[in-house]
Every structure is written in structure tokens, then in C-alpha cells.
């Protein structure tokens, strides 16, 4: 496992940050981001897949009321792939019109999906060698989050209560002695640990105005906010002619 990995640094792998607005479709947006990243890594071709297709065609009903990540993948397999975002754009409401999966050409598809081992070392290995994965977390601390690495104090982010799904796109460590941005200016707060902090980099679906340009960082190695609860990923086969895949940039 490399010490750092950030798929955002590889060109055209991570699609732009989405905004779910008032539709509780984090599950569909995380699944779409996972498929897009894997498709770009394996096929060396960037695509933007239709989240709306996942919402309209989800077997569980109203996709704007929340959903399961595995249902997103099952929907993709049942429909033999997904249309493009351009052909079948996001409207922020589910089943305003019926499933139109048959109407548009598929731009990406998956072979299967798997649940990864519930440990952070295994997740890091898979992330670095295969590509971004989806995770479920407790989103309680994200309401007031602005930037930096969240390392919850015991009891402040129940790892058993996961209620949000996001895309894991990398990991790293802060530099030794790195402080909060405001501490650097005001130095009023209590001093922070001088050692470096390992973190995960996660892509959220609340627009680029939120957090660190749509992303946030969470402590790695302590199952922060339940990040190891449900690590899942789609499986996208590499075409025979393109066996040389891209590796995660440090």
C-alpha cells in the first residue's frame, strides 16, 4: 500500500462534484462516481453517467427518499449499463417520468459489485490498486464542517449509525505540526498534536461550495464515523486490449 494516493490528481478519472440538492440520492451519486472512476481507469475514457436513471429505475421505489448502494449497482446490471448524464440529466426528483433506461444508449456498464473487507488497510490497498470505492458514514459532523481533517472525539460520531454514502478517492497524511488555517492566524485555540494525521479523502455530493471544494477529509485508522461499515465497489472489467491500467498518483 503506498503512503499516499489521490485519484483526483490523475487526469479525467474523478468527475466533477455533484449536488443532490433536496433529493436524498447520495447513494446514486456515490455509485455513479464509482462507476465513472473505474470506467476511466480501466477503459481510459471519461464518462458521466446518469444519476437520474438510477433514481427512475431503482427497484426500491422513490430514490429521492434515500437508497441502498447495492441497489444502484443491481439497477445498473439489470439495465445492462447506464446512459450518459447528458442524454438523461439529473432533475432532482425520482420517477417524475417512468424509467427511460431503454431509450438511451449505454455509455458504461459493470460486471458485478463486491463488498470489501471492513478494515482500513484493506480499503486503502483496494483504493490504491483498483480505484475509488463507496463508503457509508455517519454525517453528523458534516453539517458544520468547513475544512481540515475530522478526527472525532470519542462519542461524537457514532460509527454504528451510518446515514450517508460518499466516494472514497484517496488517502494521505498531514505534515507534522500542520495546524488549522485559523490557528495559523490567531493561535488562540489549544495546541494541536505535532505529529502527522493520516486521513481519507472523500468526495461528497453537496456541491463544490461545500467543504474543501466539495470534498472532505476524515481520520484514517480509527473507523472514524463508521467508514469501514459498508465499503462497496462496482467491478469494471479491463478490455483485453487495454490491460495496462493507471495507478493512483501519490
Amino acid at each position, binding site marked *: 500500500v503506498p503512503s499516499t494516493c489521490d485519484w483526483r490528481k490523475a487526469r479525467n478519472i474523478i468527475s466533477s462534484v455533484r449536488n*443532490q440538492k433536496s433529493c*436524498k440520492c*447520495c*447513494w446514486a451519486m456515490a455509485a455513479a462516481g464509482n462507476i465513472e472512476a473505474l470506467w476511466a481507469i480501466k477503459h481510459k475514457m471519461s464518462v458521466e453517467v446518469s444519476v437520474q436513471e438510477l433514481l427512475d429505475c431503482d427497484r*426500491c421505489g422513490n430514490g429521492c*427518499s*434515500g*437508497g*441502498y*448502494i*447495492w441497489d444502484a449497482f443491481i439497477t445498473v446490471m439489470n439495465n445492462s449499463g447506464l446512459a450518459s448524464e447528458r442524454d438523461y440529466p439529473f432533475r432532482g426528483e425520482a420517477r417524475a417520468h417512468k424509467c427511460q433506461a431503454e431509450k438511451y444508449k449505454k455509455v458504461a456498464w459493470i460486471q*458485478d*459489485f*463486491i*463488498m*470489501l*473487507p471492513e478494515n482500513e488497510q*484493506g480499503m486503502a*490497498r*483496494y483504493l490504491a*490498486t*483498483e480505484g475509488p470505492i463507496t463508503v457509508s458514514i455517519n*454525517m*453528523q*459532523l458534516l*453539517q*458544520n*464542517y*468547513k*475544512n*481540515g*481533517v*475530522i*478526527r*472525532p*472525539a470519542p462519542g*461524537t460520531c457514532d460509527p454504528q*449509525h451510518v*446515514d*450517508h*454514502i460518499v466516494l472514497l478517492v484517496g488517502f494521505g497524511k*498531514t505534515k507534522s505540526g500542520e*495546524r*488549522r*488555517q*485559523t490557528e495559523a492566524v490567531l493561535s488562540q*485555540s*489549544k495546541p*494541536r*498534536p505535532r505529529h502527522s*494525521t493520516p*486521513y481519507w479523502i472523500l468526495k461528497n455530493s*453537496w*456541491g463544490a*461550495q*461545500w467543504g474543501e471544494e466539495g470534498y472532505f477529509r476524515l*481520520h484514517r485508522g480509527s473507523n472514524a464515523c463508521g467508514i469501514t461499515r*459498508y465499503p*462497496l465497489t462496482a*467491478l469494471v472489467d479491463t478490455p483485453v486490449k487495454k490491460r495496462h491500467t493507471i495507478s493512483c498518483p501519490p
Partner: protein
Amino acid sequence: QGIGGQDPGPRPLELKEVFTLFQIQYNRSYSNPAEHARRLDIFARNLARAQQLQEDDLGTAEFGVTPFSDLTEEEFGQLYGNQRAAGRAPNVDRKVGSGERGES
């Protein structure tokens, strides 16, 4: 200018000013003065909560004004929380230990 002739520096923004800036930044308006007052109160509570979170956090995170600062914790959970995410995972093929693909 201070009594001793020294400039005390810029005064901190008052809560209402911070709230006005929040409304401008995130394009928020409220239907009536009562609702405005309620949201201002929620905003103040969230700022206090953000300060406490930052005190408690063991990492380098900063908490403060965000697009969700005028929502209660319950509203935030209802609007953005995926209750189904907490459900039981189906009996999917769990490949523990290796990332290799097994038999279908």
C-alpha cells in the same frame, strides 16, 4: 481610535451581520420576520455548536458557517440523511483479504 491613541483593529462582526453575510452567500430568504428570527436563533446555536466541535476535534478540522447553518440538526438529518444507508447489507460476495475476483 482607542483612548491611548492606538487603533484597536477591526471590531468582530456581530451575529446579525454574520447571518446577513450567510444569507447573501447562500442566497437565503425567509417568508416572514418570525421565520427570520427563528433561523437566526438556529444559526447562532449552530455557530456555538461548531465552536464546540472544533474544541473537541482531535484532528485539524475547522467547523463554522456552512450552507446548512440555518438548519437544526434534525432538519439536516431529515433533508440529507439517507436512512436506508443504515440498513442491512444483502448477502453479497465479500472478498475478504484480497482484491482479486473469484468465481461468480
